């Protein structure tokens, strides 16, 4: 049967166009029921013939559920619960969900694909009996509601025709009152979600996972309206078109909950708008896409340097107090600091996800409404309703936001999942993995099925297109305890006197073939995540620590990059080949250094290492002469107790010459490969770039250096590198490192991209015109793609469709960049957590520290001994406030009579503040120089008070 759909559409240019599309109605769409005699039985029946499902007091018989769109959008958490099975999802509903929320659509699709859930998606819009046309005067929402009801009716008639011994019911789940009334009128059994879930006798805990909906009229908040109404989408779009509003991503400030910035993405340059104050923030949550209206210039504000946290014990809905705080933000600041300021007028797209955090139990014992404090400071606290508050207290839980009414200080949400006790190492790791969206489930069976069968050995087939390099004296140099060795090196003198240098990289792409489940899973993970006590592998362990790992004295497959160089490290010839190698030794950096340094050793490995080291020195010098930056960031290593896995000591990573030797050759290999794959595939080479930062990024560095009387030039990478090198202060050797740390903070993120989609390839930090990642395929997916490209380029492997599709490659890059960023954050969070554990056992200590940043009411200090960074506040509750004077030209902060500048040396007192279980934090207080009122007295006895901190001459 055929009908046609005709509709009018306005084109972008404004013309009205009539569009006619065919719409075929079919009679071969099954009802999805196992063994249905009328539909001829599906090949893979989705619904059970006798639906089990949870026992419900409302409908004791077997039944199928059929939710409508809004229910699906809001109550997806409930539907995902294993208790709920045998659900029919209509195509109408699925389409509407798809248009309205991509994450929910993804989730419901996953649920449908799970066989044990027995979800069936019924294509009602193409079924001849359930398709309906839009009637005159009926809007599309009403039409869709009607379509849903028609489908429900069709199902119940269909089930009746089947004449099963036991009557099976169809239940429409809808929270729309009108729709429900109409359904009941038409003789359909319809319940609201709440009614149904509450009727589940055996599963009372599900009620907590119900999303609270404000249209139920059960709001007990004060009637006062706090926020301005959000404008509807159509108005926003109009406003954006006419430049009245600006569209951007909302980024809440981590350190000040009353301030946020909105990144305006759009034509050409990106800019930032500041939003200050609860009302102007207008219920936007971190990462939402919002529309912003600029305030008049008179109302512009400067980014405040105040650190402000939403207080735990604060009264709910106490708005007056907020206002007072807001005023404190607006303290006078010079006009030059004023930035465009605006207010949020509407939300274009919410980007809510489930949030990890903890319950702050209400003081009233019987209360069912509690506030939930997310682990991420940028997320506001969420009000949830639960009966299990006492069991959830002290546990890490996951909560989802449902909505944020105008009269509520906090958004409303519902409980999703309990992760375990807070402070527990397992739970905390789980939390930080979840919060950073790191896929960390064990590999599934289907993924593991693509692993090579053990025992594995190299076959003649493998040898066909490989060079046998087993005779070469190859060795690997890695950090101690490394099991995933992905690179090895060799160097030998050729007959013509030149040197042959080889970098051999594990041939992971030999084992991970494009398109299979193993490949997809690795692509999704994107990178291996190294936490302090744990590694989340990108590829299964068999590959990462065995078959791909270039261990010593076993034959391993490799991808080799071999150069012929003269003694001044000029490349004469470059060659790439798949190979078989047999590493002669796997050394640590220290072992390699020892071999090079001890004159008595003269074996093959040592000579090879010495050759490499000599070349590396020349290469490094060339690179630095070209303007490559040597930056620094404090990295720490924990010594773990072997049994309890608690950190027992903490030290900064130490760099040896051999580190730089390995790094130099890896860089060289990456650059050579980048050039090769770009020559071969100009449109779809996967490369890595590092954009030059905008000059304003360096302000903080330049100002800070100036306060110490040094000049930093930032016009080019070369100038920066040179001025950093010359910035020495004899009396203060650590200053140079501090400057480099600060410079690192000014940099942009390096990113992967597809050469066909971009035309700026430059790598700023390495001062290389082209760069990619080739050398760590075991722990980075980007390298696997580069391996495949290179293999095609040298004719060692064949291409496949997705490899030559630049849009797919660009999508992949986006995912990889995201995963890398998240992995980095997760690593930092893990370090922070272990630092806390460390100081918990260590108690209170005093340490020497340097000021990194000066803020309006605090200073951020770095403790070189632990590579630890922290904030020292000068205002404390229940204490008289010291007079603070902030000067942001220099920048400096004067507390009482002492003035702090960037890079000043101070002594701080470190201890673990466990008063808030959720955000256990390292608290730092100033010991030296002494301040009236704020400094920690007495404890610092070992430090002589006469010993004035080495403070530079005070200006003014």
């Amino acid at each position, binding site marked *: 049967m055929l009908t046609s759909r005709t509709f009018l559409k306005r084109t972008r240019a404004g013309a009205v*166009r009539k569009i006619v*599309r*065919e719409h*075929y109605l079919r009679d071969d769409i099954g009802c999805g029921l196992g063994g249905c005699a009328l539909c001829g039985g599906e090949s893979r029946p989705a619904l059970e013939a006798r639906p089990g499902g949870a026992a419900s007091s409302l409908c004791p018989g077997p039944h199928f559920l059929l939710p409508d769109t809004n229910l699906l959008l809001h109550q997806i958490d409930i539907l995902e619960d294993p208790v709920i099975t045998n659900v029919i999802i209509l195509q109408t509903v699925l389409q509407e969900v798809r248009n309205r929320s991509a994450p929910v659509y993804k989730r419901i*699709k996953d649920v449908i694909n799970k066989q044990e859930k027995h979800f069936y*998606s019924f294509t009602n819009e*193409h079924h001849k009996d359930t398709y309906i046309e839009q009637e005159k005067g009926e809007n599309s929402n009403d039409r869709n509601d009607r379509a849903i009801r028609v489908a429900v009716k069709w199902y119940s008639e269909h089930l009746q025709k089947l004449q099963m011994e036991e009557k099976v019911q169809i239940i429409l789940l809808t929270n729309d009152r009108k729709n429900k009334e109409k359904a009941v009128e038409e003789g359909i059994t319809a319940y609201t979600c709440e009614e149904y879930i509450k009727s589940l006798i055996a599963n009372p805990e599900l009620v907590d996972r119900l999303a609270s909906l404000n249209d139920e009229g059960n709001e007990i908040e004060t009637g006062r309206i706090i926020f301005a109404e959000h404008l509807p989408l159509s108005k926003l779009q109009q406003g954006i078109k006419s430049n009245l509003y600006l569209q951007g991503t909302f980024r809440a400030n981590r350190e000040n909950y009353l301030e946020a910035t909105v990144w305006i993405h759009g034509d050409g340059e990106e800019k930032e708008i500041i939003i200050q104050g609860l009302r102007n923030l207008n219920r936007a949550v971190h990462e939402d896409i919002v529309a912003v209206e600029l305030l008049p210039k008179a109302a512009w504000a400067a980014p405040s340097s105040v650190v402000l946290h939403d207080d735990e014990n604060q009264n709910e809905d106490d708005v007056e107090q907020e206002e007072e705080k807001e005023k404190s933000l607006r303290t006078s600041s010079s006009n030059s600091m004023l930035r465009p300021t605006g207010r949020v007028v509407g939300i274009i797209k919410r980007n809510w996800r489930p949030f990890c955090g903890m319950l702050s139990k209400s003081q009233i014992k019987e209360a069912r409404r509690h506030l939930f404090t997310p682990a991420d400071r940028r997320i506001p606290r969420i009000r949830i309703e639960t009966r299990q508050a006492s069991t959830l207290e002290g546990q890490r839980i996951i909560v989802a936001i449902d909505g944020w009414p105008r009269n509520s200080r906090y958004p409303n949400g519902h409980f999703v999942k309990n992760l375990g006790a807070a402070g527990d190492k397992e739970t905390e790791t789980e939390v930080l993995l979840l919060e950073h969206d790191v896929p960390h489930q064990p590999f599934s069976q289907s993924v593991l099925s693509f692993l090579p069968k053990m025992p594995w050995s190299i076959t003649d087939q493998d040898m066909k297109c490989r060079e046998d390099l087993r005779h070469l004296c190859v060795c690997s140099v890695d950090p101690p305890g490394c099991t995933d060795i992905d690179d090895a090196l060799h160097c030998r003198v050729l007959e013509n006197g030149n040197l042959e240098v080889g970098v051999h990289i594990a041939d992971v792409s030999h084992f991970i073939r494009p398109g299979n489940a193993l490949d997809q899973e690795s692509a999704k993970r994107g990178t291996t995540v190294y936490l302090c006590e744990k590694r989340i592998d990108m590829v299964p362990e068999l590959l990462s620590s065995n078959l791909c790992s270039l261990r010593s004295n076993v034959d391993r497959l490799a991808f080799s990059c071999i150069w012929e160089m003269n003694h001044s490290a000029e490349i004469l010839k470059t060659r790439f080949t798949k190979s078989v190698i047999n590493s002669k030794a796997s050394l640590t950096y220290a072992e390699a250094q020892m071999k090079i340094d001890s004159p008595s050793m003269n074996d093959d490995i040592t000579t090879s290492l010495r050759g490499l080291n000599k070349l590396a020195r020349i290469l490094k010098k060339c690179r630095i002469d070209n303007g490559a930056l040597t930056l620094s960031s404090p990295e720490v290593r924990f010594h773990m107790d072997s049994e309890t896995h608690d950190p027992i000591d903490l030290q900064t990573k130490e760099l040896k010459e051999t580190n730089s030797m390995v790094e130099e050759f890896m860089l060289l290999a990456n650059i050579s490969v980048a050039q090769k794959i770009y020559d071969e595939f100009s449109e779809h080479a996967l490369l890595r770039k590092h954009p030059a930062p905008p000059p304003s990024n360096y302000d903080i560095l330049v100002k800070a250096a100036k306060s110490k009387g040094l000049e930093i030039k930032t016009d080019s990478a070369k100038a920066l590198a040179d001025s950093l090198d010359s910035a020495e202060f004899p009396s203060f050797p650590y200053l140079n490192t501090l400057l480099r740390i600060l410079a690192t903070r000014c940099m942009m993120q390096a990113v992967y991209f597809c050469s066909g989609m971009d035309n700026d390839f430059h790598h700023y930090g390495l001062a290389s015109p082209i760069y990619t990642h080739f050398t760590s395929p075991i722990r980075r997916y980007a390298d696997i793609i580069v391996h495949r490209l290179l293999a095609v380029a040298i004719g060692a492997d064949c291409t496949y*469709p997705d490899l*030559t599709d630049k849009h797919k490659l660009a999508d992949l890059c986006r995912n990889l960049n995201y995963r890398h960023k998240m992995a980095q954050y997760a690593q930092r969070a893990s370090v922070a957590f272990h630092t806390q554990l460390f100081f918990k056992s260590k108690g209170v200590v005093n340490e020497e520290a340097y000021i990194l940043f000066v803020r309006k009411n605090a200073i951020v200090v770095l403790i070189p001994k632990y590579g630890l960074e922290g904030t020292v506040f000068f205002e404390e509750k229940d204490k008289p406030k010291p007079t603070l004077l902030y000067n942001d030209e220099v920048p400096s902060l004067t507390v009482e009579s002492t003035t702090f500048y960037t890079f000043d040396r101070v002594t701080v007192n470190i201890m673990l503040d466990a008063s808030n279980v959720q955000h256990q934090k390292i608290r730092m207080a100033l010991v030296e120089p002494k301040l009236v009122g704020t400094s920690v007295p007495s404890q610092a006895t070992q430090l002589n008070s006469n010993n004035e901190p080495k403070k530079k001459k005070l200006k003014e």
Partner: protein
Amino acid sequence: MAGLELLSEQGFRLDGRRAGELRQLRARMGVFAQADGSAYLEQGNTKALAVVYGPHELRGSRGKAPHAQALVNCQYSMATFSTAERKRRPHGDRASAEMSLHLKQTFEAALLTRLFPRSQIDIYVQILQADGGNYCAAVNAATLALLDAGIPMRDYVCACSAGFLEDTALADLNYVEEAAGGPQLALALLPQAQHIALLELNARLHQDHLPRVLDAATQACRHLHALLDRVVREHLRDAAALLGK
């Protein structure tokens, strides 16, 4: 907003067809009395009218005409009202000129032109409504018109398009699917001998996928052949009934 979902998880396309299914085909032969042969054909919402004259004496310059075989002259055009946007298409339209050339190549391969040296066969095709697969509809309509004119051919020429989306080959694309910009393959096939008269592919398609897309198009052409054959036989039966009286 999310774009259109051209192929749903359940395997249905936007208009309700499955991946390998054709659009509804309706056709009539002998629609004009004056012409030697004519046919009207609908493939879904794509509607084409084909008219054939000949074989007749060569007209115009004889210089270009081949000596030993008939000259096949094709003209393809689109009605102003055929697309959603009204657009005047004077004869110089480049797309139409290319299409005319394709048609010429297709039918030179299928017609037994050597039987008619020093003569000419004219094929005029007009698209009345365009909804994807214009070339295919034009070829199919022209085949019927040629059969109606009784011009000897090796076989029917059946043409069908195929696309490739999310690892699935789609047969007989409509306008929306074409406009999505994926690879699109047009195949004109002589179904009995399995000879390819014309094969055109636009947009990049990886070599590994080609056999599958080609299979889908071939399969679709076979189905079209059966349908066209039925139309011809029905037309003959009607004509025979009229003659028999």
